[in-house]
């Protein structure tokens, strides 16, 4: 059974139809990259899978481990093991990272019928996972993302990913705005978390990230549909020829 199956997904915001019949299948152990020009619907896809209510789904469905989750709420999807690393992580003044993660970890444990983590175990886990993305100790007591640099915010997303150990991680342009050092740290974190039971969907505009996190599959999204899929070499081809090549290619395929 596939981990994620997106079938003919159509989604709009207000009168703007963004996803126009998108299909995607992700199996445990796989890393998928979704590439495409600005405005093609990449971030919308990530948001809709995570359950953002700003979008209206007006066709198709999303299956997670075989279960239709199209109508589930955001937190229910997260509790099932879907994680979205935000392109623009939200600043939450007054809520410390430690408190945030404690609430999060224990909410997910509770939904699975598990006891809350003991303060000792929680702290140990915080230490271990923050080391993975080279986050300083003082970070725990700081408010979530408040006053963080772009790179710190992205590292925090990967830290949360490490804390929650989801089955499916959607990384929405995690590479954008990162310098090369931060990109290496973030990639190292993701690679360390990869295993045969989880899967990653990397949403990116650039091929650069894929030098560090090597995908099994690359999909090109244009105008609300996946217009081309291939192996990791597709990313290189895209980098060389530009997105116009796929768009033209897609039009040819459709008209052929």
């Amino acid at each position, binding site marked *: 059974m596939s981990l994620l199956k997106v079938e003919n997904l159509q989604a709009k915001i207000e009168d703007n139809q963004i996803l126009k019949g998108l299909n995607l299948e992700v199996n445990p152990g796989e890393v998928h990259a979704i590439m495409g020009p600005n405005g093609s619907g990449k971030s919308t896809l990530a948001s809709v899978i*995570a*359950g*953002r*209510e700003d979008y209206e789904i007006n066709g198709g469905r999303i299956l997670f481990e075989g279960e239709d989750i199209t109508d589930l*709420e*955001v*937190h229910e999807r*997260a*509790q099932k093991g879907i*994680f*979205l690393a*935000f392109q623009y*992580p*939200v*600043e*939450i*003044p*007054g*809520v410390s990272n430690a*408190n*945030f993660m404690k*609430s*999060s970890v224990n*909410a*997910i444990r509770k*939904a699975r019928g598990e006891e809350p983590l003991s303060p000792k175990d929680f702290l140990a886990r915080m230490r271990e996972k923050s080391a993975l993305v080279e986050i300083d100790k003082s970070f725990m007591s700081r*408010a979530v993302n408040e006053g963080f640099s772009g790179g710190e915010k992205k590292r925090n997303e990967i830290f*949360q990913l490490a804390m*929650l150990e989801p089955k499916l991680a959607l990384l929405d342009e995690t590479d954008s705005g990162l310098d090369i050092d931060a990109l290496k740290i973030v990639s190292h974190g993701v690679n360390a978390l990869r295993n045969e039971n989880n899967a990653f969907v990397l949403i990116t505009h650039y091929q650069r990230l894929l030098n560090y996190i090597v995908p099994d599959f690359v999909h090109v999204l244009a105008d609300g549909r996946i217009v081309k899929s291939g192996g990791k070499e597709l990313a290189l081809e895209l980098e060389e020829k530009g997105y116009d090549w796929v768009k033209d290619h897609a039009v040819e395929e459709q008209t052929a």
Partner: protein
Amino acid sequence: MPIQGNNFKERILSGFDIYENHLNGHKDSAQHKVRVDAIKHFEAKGLPTLKNELWKYTNVGFLNSLDFRLDITDTNHSITAEDIQKLKVDGIDNYVAIVNGFYSKELSSFDTSLEVKSLKSALSENKEDIDAHFNKYLKNDTNVFSSLNTALSFDGVFIKAKKGLVEEKPLHIINIVDSRSGTQFKQARNLIIAEDNSDMKLYETNHTIGDNIGISNISTEIYVGHNTKLEHIKFQNDTDNGIYFAQSEAKQERDSNYTSNTITLNGKFVRNDLGTTHNGENIETHYYGYYYGSGRNLIDNHTMVDHATPHCESNELYKGVLGDSSIGTFNGKILVRPDAQKTNAYQSSKNVLLTDTAKVNAKPELEIYADDVKCSHGSSTGSIDKDALFYLQSRGILPETAKALLLLAYSQEIIDKISVEPIREYIARQVELKFGM
């Protein structure tokens, strides 16, 4: 029991008449004349209406329909030491109880270097203090509830820090109205004198005990001497039977620092009038406030900083969260008089509305007559940050918990200003309970 009139004013006036008729030979005393002047002022003005600029958002007409019998010298009550134990905060061992407007020696307990006694005793024993500070700061002319208090109050608490006295241990003032035997309208009058170079911390709470409506009308005068530090924390988390009018007026001398922190979590009706007048240079005034309205709560905070002297600073931040059909009002005025050059005055009021039926009235006022000053005010009203909610929920946190986390964080900025740890933690816990945490 004879009926005491058909509306609030008639009930008050006939109650005062009955009191006066029992005075016999004492009608000519100076103290009684002050009462008579105050009651005449009330008789002429009556209850404020929405046409009164200071009451334009808050209708007190409901007081007319409350049936109570005014017996202003009645000291009977059934409050016990057990009741007090439930109201005190762990770690705060100094407390005074004021029940139905009268200081209760039996229910109070303290070991402090402050001078603490009933106002009634102070009126006869502390002539110098009374002459210098009693009924000097309260705005009887503009606030009818102050004049009512002046006319009808007999007691309350007197607190004094002598010159140079630093008292680290906070004093808890527990105001109680016992409404078990019927609707009550009770006055307490407090006088707080912090002499030069002193430092004290006060924690004030109000409680209605009983199934009937309890109206408290509490007037507090505060003198903050040279180079003196005073922190005054008010925590209002009464039952739905509590109606609370509080006027607090301070006079600050040079180099003094006065911090007021007012946190309101419940009460049928709460009106806080908070005022400070500067009388010297290099004065700091800090006003912080947090209010959470639910049900049909009405919470009204009126503040006024009178910058009468140069080189002073005031800093004000009030934050509100209004749910259900509650109403919150913030009216903050900064007055900078012509002599008050080099004034720094900042004011900010922020509100979050949780429902379409909750309402907020925010009215910042700046009145500036000096030209070399830095003043700013801002006011904002919004709803819970949807992006933040989505972010928290996307990490598996339930919507109610996510909301509570955000609302707690919002209140934190104000609660963190409280310097006394057991009080800060107690109030933080009460706010958590409000949000179901």
